C-alpha cells in the first residue's frame, strides 16, 4: 500500500488515526529514481520545473499508443471512438480534480502558458481596452506577465503590480488599494514558482469580485501539491500544466466559468473548433471545443488523466502533509548553515526552497551539486521581477515532491557544505 494508516497518541493520551505515505512503495513507482548521475544516485530536487513520471502513467501511454490511438471526434471506426471516449474521460477526470461544475469548462491546452495566452486573446482582447487596468502580482512567472504586457501594449491598457514584503508575501492592503473603476482583470499566481509563497487567493478573489473584476489563477505550482476546488475559490479561470504533476509535457488545462467561455472569442482557428465552414462564414463549435483547434495532444491528455488517478490514489492531502514535513525539515537544516540565506520565508509555503550562498554564484552551486547527482534549478526561474525585488541576479532552488526523502535533503545540505568549503 502506498498509504498506511497509523495511530498516533496526542499529548493528553488521545489517539487519532492518520494516513501516511509509504515512501519506499511510492519511490518504487518512479523508474527514473533508480538512475545514477555522475556515478551517484540521482537526487531529483527540481520538481517545480518538471516532475517525474510514475510507472502507471508510463504504462497508460504505452497502452494508448499500442492499442487505442486514432484521431478523435471524427471517424465512426472503432479506434476513433475508443480514443474519443478515453480523451473525454480524461476531461471528466480533470473536472473532478478541480471540482468544476461542468466538464465543458475544461479546455485542454499545451500547458499553463498557452492557457494564459488563450485567456489574454479570447477574453482580454475583447473586454480590456484603452486606459483599463490589469492587476498582476510581484510574484508572477514570466508566463503570467508577458501576455498581459502584450495586451497592454496593443490596447493601451495599464499593468498594476501588487507589491510584496521581504518574506515574499503579497501586501494585501496595497492590493486592495489598487482597485478602481478602470480595473478590468486580476491575473495572479496561486503558488509562486520562485519562492513557494501560497497566496491567499480565496480572499483576494472575493475582493476582486466585489469590484466586478474577473480573476485568472496561474495554478502551475499549486496543482501538484494540494487539493483544489475552483468553485470554492470562485476563480473565473484556472491554468495548470500536466508535466509538473507526474503527467507528460505538451498538455495543460484551462478551466473557465462556462458563462465567460461562451462570450469569449476563439483563440485559434482550425479543425474541431467549428460547426460549419463556408468561404463566407464559419459557425464555431460549442465550448470547450471552440478553444481546441486542430488535433489535440490526445495521448498526453489521457496520460494526464492517469496522473490524476495516481495522485488521487495517494491523496492530495497526504501529499500536502508529507511535503510540508520535507519543507520544514529542509528549512530547518538549511537555515542552520552559516552564510546561507533562504529567499522566500512566507508563513504559508509550498515545497520550494530558494537560497543563496554568500559569495557563490548559483550557477557554480548547481554545477557542483550536480557532481553529487543532485539536480536543483539555478537561475532567475522565469521570474526576473522577483529576483530584482530581492536584489539577486539568480537563486539556487530546491523544490520537493512527495517522492523525495529527508535523506535526500541531508545530501543537499552536505552538498551546500562542500560548495562552501570549495569557495572558502
Amino acid at each position, binding site marked *: 500500500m502506498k498509504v498506511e494508516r497509523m495511530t498516533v497518541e496526542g499529548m493528553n493520551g488521545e489517539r487519532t488515526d492518520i494516513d501516511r505515505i509509504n515512501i519506499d512503495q511510492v519511490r518504487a513507482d518512479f523508474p527514473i529514481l533508480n538512475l545514477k548521475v555522475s556515478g551517484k544516485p540521482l537526487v531529483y530536487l527540481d520538481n517545480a520545473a518538471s516532475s517525474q513520471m510514475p510507472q502507471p502513467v508510463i504504462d497508460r501511454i504505452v497502452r494508448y499508443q499500442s492499442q487505442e490511438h486514432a484521431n478523435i471526434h471524427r471517424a465512426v471506426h472503432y479506434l476513433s471512438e475508443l480514443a474519443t471516449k478515453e480523451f473525454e474521460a480524461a476531461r471528466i477526470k480533470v473536472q473532478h480534480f478541480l471540482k468544476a461544475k461542468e466538464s465543458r469548462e475544461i479546455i485542454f491546452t499545451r500547458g499553463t502558458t498557452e492557457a494564459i495566452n488563450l485567456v489574454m486573446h479570447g477574453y482580454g482582447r475583447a473586454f480590456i481596452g484603452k486606459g483599463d487596468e490589469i492587476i498582476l502580482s510581484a510574484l508572477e512567472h514570466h508566463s503570467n506577465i508577458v501576455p498581459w504586457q502584450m495586451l497592454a501594449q496593443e490596447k493601451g491598457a495599464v499593468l498594476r503590480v501588487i507589491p510584496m514584503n521581504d518574506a515574499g508575501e503579497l501586501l494585501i492592503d496595497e492590493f486592495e488599494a489598487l482597485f478602481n473603476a478602470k480595473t478590468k482583470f486580476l491575473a495572479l499566481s496561486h503558488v509562486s514558482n520562485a519562492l513557494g509563497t501560497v497566496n491567499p487567493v480565496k480572499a483576494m478573489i472575493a475582493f476582486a469580485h466585489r469590484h466586478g473584476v474577473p480573476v485568472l489563477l496561474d495554478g502551475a505550482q499549486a496543482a501538484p501539491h494540494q487539493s483544489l476546488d475552483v468553485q470554492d475559490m470562485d476563480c473565473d479561470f484556472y491554468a495548470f500544466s500536466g508535466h509538473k504533476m507526474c503527467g507528460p509535457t505538451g498538455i495543460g488545462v484551462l478551466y473557465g466559468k462556462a458563462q465567460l467561455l461562451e462570450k469569449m472569442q476563439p483563440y485559434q482557428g482550425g479543425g474541431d473548433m467549428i460547426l460549419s465552414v463556408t468561404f463566407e462564414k464559419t459557425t464555431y463549435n460549442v465550448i470547450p471545443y471552440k478553444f481546441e483547434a486542430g488535433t489535440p495532444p490526445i495521448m498526453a491528455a489521457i496520460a494526464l488523466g492517469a496522473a490524476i488517478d495516481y495522485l488521487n490514489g495517494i491523496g492530495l492531502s497526504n501529499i500536502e502533509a508529507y511535503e510540508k514535513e520535507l519543507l520544514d525539515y529542509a528549512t530547518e537544516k538549511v537555515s542552520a548553515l552559516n552564510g546561507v540565506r533562504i529567499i522566500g520565508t512566507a508563513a504559508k509555503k509550498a515545497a520550494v526552497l530558494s537560497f543563496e550562498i554568500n559569495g557563490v554564484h548559483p*550557477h557554480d552551486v548547481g554545477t557542483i551539486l550536480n557532481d553529487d547527482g543532485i539536480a536543483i*534549478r539555478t*537561475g*532567475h526561474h522565469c521570474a526576473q521581477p522577483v529576483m530584482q525585488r530581492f536584489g539577486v541576479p539568480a537563486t539556487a532552488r530546491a523544490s520537493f515532491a512527495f517522492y523525495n526523502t529527508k535523506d535526500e535533503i541531508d545530501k543537499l545540505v552536505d552538498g551546500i557544505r562542500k560548495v562552501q568549503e570549495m*569557495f572558502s
Partner: protein
Amino acid sequence: MTDMRQLYQEVILDHNRKPRNFGAIPGANRHAEGHNPLCGDHIKLSMNVLEDKIETIAFEGEGCAICKASASMMTGAVKGKTVPDAEIMIEEFRGMATGTLDLDIEANHLGKLKVFAGVKDLPSRVKCAILPWHTLHAALHAEFSVSTEGEADPVPGTTIGEE
C-alpha cells in the same frame, strides 16, 4: 563528467575571489558590454588600443566564478598583445571551450587558460567561460553590446533552453 576539483581549480577560485584588472579605464578608446540573459552574468570591458596593440584592459561586472575568473585571466593574457594575436586567442579559447580544439594535438597559445578546458563537458556552463572573450571580440570590432543569445552569438550549437 569533469571532476569538480579539476574545473574549480585553485587558480580559478583565486581569480574569482581577487579578480585582476578589475574596474574601468577612464577615457578608454574601446568598450563593450556582454551579458548572458539566462543567468544574469554581465561583463563591461574597457581598453585602450594603440597602433593595433592592446595597451590597457580592464573589466567590471557580475557573474559566476567561471565567468569572472575567465574575464580576469583573459585581461592578463591579452594585455600587451596585438589585435591579430588577441583574435587568435579568442578563436582558440572558443575552440577549447566548445571542444572543437584538441589541446593534446593542436598547437595553441592558451597557456594558463587551459584550466578552463573542463567546461566543454558542461554544456550549460560553456557560455559562462566564453562571455568575456565574446565581449572582447565585440570591443575589437566596435560592437558595443553583445549577448550570448541571438544572432551575435559566435558560438555554434550552444543555445540553452529555458524552463
